[in-house]
């Protein structure tokens, strides 16, 4: 068990190493990525350019640069941005995490509740008009590009009907810290939450419905029914509980990816200064230290989510535990 755990962790590290190397190499393969001229300033003399390149270590061999950067990222933790000179990337990423967490947690509440309701109602009323309507709505939710939905939401709430009674409460785009104003935090995030959750409500509702329908046809459900247990209790106690395995697995992976910066588009559209926005900004300016930090951060969450789901699976799923 321990050996397996260690080897699994080793593989995680390997994947993260691979990702950082790829990001690093891509940066240096990009023409115009050399930040020296941008750092040195417009119309800098060639001497200044050389000096700056030397100061930033950009004249050293790539493996050395990579090693130094990793050393400064993980050990001395004082790696600074190429663009906003002096901005330490580690604290910057750490400061962006609460924003992303706020966004993803809130959206997750929406989508778990929404997904459960849609899935259970549709599964219970299989074949009815209600089921069909919910499934079409879910599919529509799944089919809307999130950034477009966000833009439309902004158009409506920030401009077109901002002055109407309906949306006059909507604050300007941006994040308000929970510690500053809980009510402001809620108001600033409720539209982004809903925007981000739309896709997942559809997704989870559909998966849950399918899983419930499948489970309800299994033997132990029939046994439960035969015992005279009410249909609703069969659904909730047995059908739902079994279906939740798939639900939880999906949730773990999605949550990990989103916390890792997968909510990039939502953050950009709503001006939320989270990890996704940070990644976006770093890419726009080709800020290598920041790119590396956010990429490693993101991959950590994705890989970690995979790992947690695998481990959790052993505990949730009775079949996996038996080890047949």
């Amino acid at each position: 068990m321990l050996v397996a755990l260690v080897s699994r962790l080793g593989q995680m590290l390997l994947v993260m190493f691979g990702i950082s190397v790829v990001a690093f190499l891509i940066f240096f393969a990009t023409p115009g990525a050399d930040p020296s001229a941008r750092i040195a300033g417009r119309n800098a003399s060639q001497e200044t350019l050389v000096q700056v390149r030397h100061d930033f270590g950009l004249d050293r061999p790539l493996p050395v640069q990579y090693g130094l950067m990793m050393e400064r990222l993980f050990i001395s933790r004082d790696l600074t941005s190429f663009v906003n000179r002096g901005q330490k990337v580690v604290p910057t990423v750490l400061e962006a995490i609460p924003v992303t967490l706020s966004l993803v947690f809130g959206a997750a509440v929406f989508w778990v509740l929404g997904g459960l309701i849609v899935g259970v109602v549709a599964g219970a009323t299989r074949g009815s008009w209600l089921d069909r309507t919910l499934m079409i709505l879910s599919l529509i939710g799944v089919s809307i590009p999130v950034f477009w939905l966000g833009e439309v939401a902004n158009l409506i709430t920030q401009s077109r009907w901002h002055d109407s009674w309906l949306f006059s409460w909507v604050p300007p785009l941006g994040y308000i810290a929970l510690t500053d104003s809980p009510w402001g935090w809620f108001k600033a995030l409720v539209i982004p939450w809903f925007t981000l959750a739309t896709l997942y409500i559809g997704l989870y509702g559909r998966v849950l419905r399918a899983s419930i329908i499948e489970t309800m046809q299994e033997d132990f459900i029939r046994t439960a029914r035969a015992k005279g247990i009410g249909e609703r209790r069969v659904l909730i106690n047995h059908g739902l509980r079994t279906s939740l395995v798939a639900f939880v697995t999906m949730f773990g992976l999605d949550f990990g990816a989103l916390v890792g910066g997968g909510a990039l588009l939502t953050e950009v559209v709503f001006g939320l200064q989270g990890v996704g926005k940070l990644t976006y900004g770093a890419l726009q300016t080709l800020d290598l230290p920041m790119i590396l930090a956010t990429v490693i951060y993101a991959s950590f969450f994705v890989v970690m989510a995979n790992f947690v789901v695998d481990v959790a699976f052993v505990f949730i799923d009775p079949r996996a535990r038996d080890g047949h």
Partner: protein
Amino acid sequence: MRSRKVFSAMLAGVGLAGLMLAASLTGAAGQEGKPGGTLKLLANAAAGTIDPHINYTLQYFQLNYILYDGLVTFRKTGDKTGFEVVADLAESLPKPEDGGKKYVFKLRKGIKFSDGSDLTTADVVASFQRMFKISGPTTGTLYNGIVGADICLKTPASCTLEGGVTADEAASTVTFNLVAPDPDFLQKISIPHAAILPAGAPLKDSGTVPIAGTGPYMIASYDPNSLLKIVRNPHFKEWSKEAQPAGYPDEIDYGFGLTDEAAVTAVENGQADWMFDPPPADRLAELGTIYAKQVSVHPLTAMWYAPMNTNLAPFNDIRVRQAVNYAIDRSAIVKLFGGANLAQPSCQILPPDFPSYAPYCPFTANPGAKWSAPDLEKAKALVAASGTAGQEVTIITEDTEVSKSIGVYLQDVLNGLGYKTSVKPISQNLQFTYIQNTNNKVQISISQWFQDYPAPSDFLQVLFSCASFTPGSDASVNISGFCDKAIDQKMVEAQAAAVADPAKGAELWTAVDKAVTDAAPVAVLFTPKRIDLISPRLKNFVFSPQFYWIISQSWVE
């Protein structure tokens, strides 16, 4: 310089007929504002380090003028006298000595840095050494005329500027010695790169850590990801209203991260007071009508232009470059920028009202002083004569709305001339260095140039001299790779003449402007104007031709 992030100050006083379209926002004369309140400013993104010796962006120059002082500075007024250099930390403007090679400044007494320490002559010497020691961006181009600068550029760490900058502490004077007379010296040391910092300032880019200054405000905190917070400097006492007046707001919060669209909405809704970035095109109509009272428009000494690589086909043929100039409908491009009230068609290098500017436009239907209409027939004839039709051309633009749409328009023009054209937008953060490097083989691109210092040399010599063309380097601002020995010689003559006889120099520069325009290494498109959107509660919006909005002089109600 380019507009967006990087721009440097406009150094000299030129009669800028301030075309103030807006109702006078400059505040009812005589009405005094009450100090207090918090100004909320917005920008898309932070502009990098806050080290005044390193940061080279308009965004922070504007702040650094109220945070720091040089020995001299530009007068902080909202009219054209704002271009004039006045004494700041120095008691008075020094007279040039030794034929323009020596300046002696006497320091004012009783000035303190925001950290409480006193300003001394040692701080001045240390500040000038520091900008070399930390490889300041302009050290090799603006300050290389100081004696000893050449050694400092080679070995920055041990920079002393010996013989160049010397202090006499007892007399409270600092003496500057130049290698050669420089008529623009005072202007050059008026920008924040020559700000006087405490001698103990760190000998490296201070990054996000504020350095103490002498201005009425100081930086309280800086997070490039969200907020730059500026508060009053408790040690500031006004010593010269024209150089560094006391400010009104108690606090200035500069927020980062909103898109242009969101920022416009926020200012319109009164949730913020001002935005740095130009408002997006589709909001201009609404700004000009519903929010007209909150808008002001000011001409800039700048140009949007299309550099053509004079060393690559087909633009290595002057006829092709001229043909492009003839074919471009500049009024159409002006539409893309927001219309005639936001830009003025132009075909020469120097912007209107610039020193040595004489209206000149050879590339128009009726050649003369002004551009009127494109001359497609002439353009086609020139292309036919060059025999280059059918070649492939790639236009490199920034991935911004305006740059991209101008690129697409230019693509149509070039296609109309018979070329096979494609457009490639590149991230605006990379495009400027990308198009400079000859290794990238850029044929034609879209770029902008904002004046660096108010002399014709800043446009003509910087952009078109052989010296500013370095093949294979990301820093080769002569994007066209234009190198004409005769014109180069003329520029040197003009610069030399200006020292002794400014009028004679100006005349020579006018000739150079015409010569470069005729050689058509670029297609000048238009002269842009700046548009400022402010909240209704913000009063006394003073727009200096030098600093743009003087933030410290506005108050909120």
